[in-house]
């Protein structure tokens, strides 16, 4: 980076507000941030290279290890890409169960993102409340899949476990609890004067900037980018009548509030799935074949794309993963943070974009 000012402030790689190591170099004039640069490379896994040449049965487990927060959607997008290559049909019941698990994962991810934001702006009380509520969501994920994080729930042609009636009843009861608690948390966030001071009008990204850097997910939707939710194109979500939530402010407050709104939307989607859950098998079967595709799905942070090439035995010959954080972190560093009035706003703005460094570095 060309040095234009006297004072350069590095934030990280080890920083109390960062969940993962990343270094932000901020060029400042007084407190004002002129420009920022992102330095990665502290947790590169090289997972795409590890995946190459391996059979899909191994790659599906590696795929969900790209990210420890939204692992379910990595599993889902990889499996749906394999199904597209091999023309494998999914039974309707399995498709609905996938939505339930995916939405539970989205809720856990959004609540964790908002926890991080509240923690960063020093509202630790609300942060801890949110973390507590997230536990209920993870408990339900464990109840259905047997695991809280790396579930390996989806397989080509279906899912591994059915939803038992008693588990469905327990999950619905828990969702009522989560909904009540989240309403209280949202009220605290919406009405907190200090939260507003740290969030409203801070880290603003316009719609044009969001489009230019291909920002995706809640970060794009908070800046008013329409049709940016890939669930709109997913057949099961279309059956469920999914509609996208959009805000126009484009600031930290909008991004956090949008994630809160999406948690409620996920609760509604799960309820709808349970109410209308079709009867039938949860596994259709099918063989993975040779082919090539680029398949995208909506992760909690936005568009997640897997470009895969396979051989006749279902071995992955080539794979490229484009995670949403690649676009969102870049937009954050080069649009939101630029011209921040204070260095204190850099950390909160960076966290408001829900950056996942593990996803970014893969």
């Amino acid at each position, binding site marked *: 980076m060309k040095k234009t000012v006297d004072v*350069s402030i590095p934030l990280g790689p080890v920083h109390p507000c960062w969940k993962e190591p990343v270094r932000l170099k901020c060029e400042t004039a007084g407190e004002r941030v002129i420009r920022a640069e992102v330095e990665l490379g502290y947790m590169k896994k090289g997972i795409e290279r590890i995946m190459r040449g391996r059979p899909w049965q191994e790659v599906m487990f590696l795929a969900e290890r790209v990210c420890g927060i939204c692992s379910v959607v990595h599993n889902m997008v990889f499996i749906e890409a394999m199904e597209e290559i091999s023309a494998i049909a999914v039974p309707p019941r399995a498709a609905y169960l996938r939505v339930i698990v995916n939405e539970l994962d989205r809720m856990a991810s959004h609540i964790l993102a908002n926890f991080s934001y509240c923690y960063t702006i020093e509202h630790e009380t609300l942060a801890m409340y949110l973390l507590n509520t997230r536990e209920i969501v993870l408990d339900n994920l464990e109840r259905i899949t047997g695991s809280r994080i790396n579930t390996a729930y989806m397989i080509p042609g279906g899912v591994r476990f059915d939803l038992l009636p008693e588990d469905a009843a327990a999950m619905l009861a828990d969702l009522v609890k989560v909904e009540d608690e989240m309403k209280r948390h949202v009220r605290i966030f919406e009405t907190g004067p200090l939260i507003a001071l740290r969030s409203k009008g801070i880290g603003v990204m316009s719609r044009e900037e969001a489009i230019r*850097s291909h920002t995706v997910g809640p970060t794009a939707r908070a800046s008013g980018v329409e049709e940016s939710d890939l669930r709109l194109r997913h057949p099961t979500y279309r059956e469920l009548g999914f509609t996208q939530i959009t805000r126009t402010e484009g600031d930290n407050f909008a991004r956090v509030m949008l994630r809160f709104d999406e948690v409620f939307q996920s609760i509604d989607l799960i309820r709808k799935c349970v109410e209308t859950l079709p009867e039938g098998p949860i596994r259709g079967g099918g063989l993975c074949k040779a082919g090539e595709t680029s398949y995208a799905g909506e992760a909690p942070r936005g568009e997640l794309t897997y470009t895969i090439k396979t051989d006749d035995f279902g071995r992955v010959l080539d794979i490229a993963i484009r995670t949403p954080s690649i676009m969102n972190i870049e937009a954050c560093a*080069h649009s939101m943070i630029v011209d921040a009035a204070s260095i204190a706003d850099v950390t909160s703005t960076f966290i408001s974009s829900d950056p996942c460094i593990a996803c970014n570095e893969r």
Partner: protein
Amino acid sequence: MTGYLYEKDLRQMKFTILTSTRHDEAVRAIAGRLGISDAKLRMVLIRRFDMSLLENLESRWAMGQQHADNGDPVTKELGCELFTRFVPLVDPGVMQSICSETRAMSENGPQEEALARGKARIREAVLS
């Protein structure tokens, strides 16, 4: 104070980003559009872009192909918006002067020649 403690040499990691499947395709497409070699473009990108921008290069290039069009055929052919806003390889001020000079030349003479000279100036600006 402009230096950092523990500053690392990021060139190898930046090169690794640029040589992944999708990034390599994007680099080849950009180099083809600019008329310079892939290796030279990689060198410029490593020198000028931070790691996050390099990671997002492929998406920005794809978005630029779709949205970088203000209706003017000369600026579109030169990639004025594409190479300043989407893939920021050229300073906007420099690009502005190249565009206006090319437009003036194309009004007074053959358009192909004007565009060729404009593109050559953009290449110079990228490699400088």
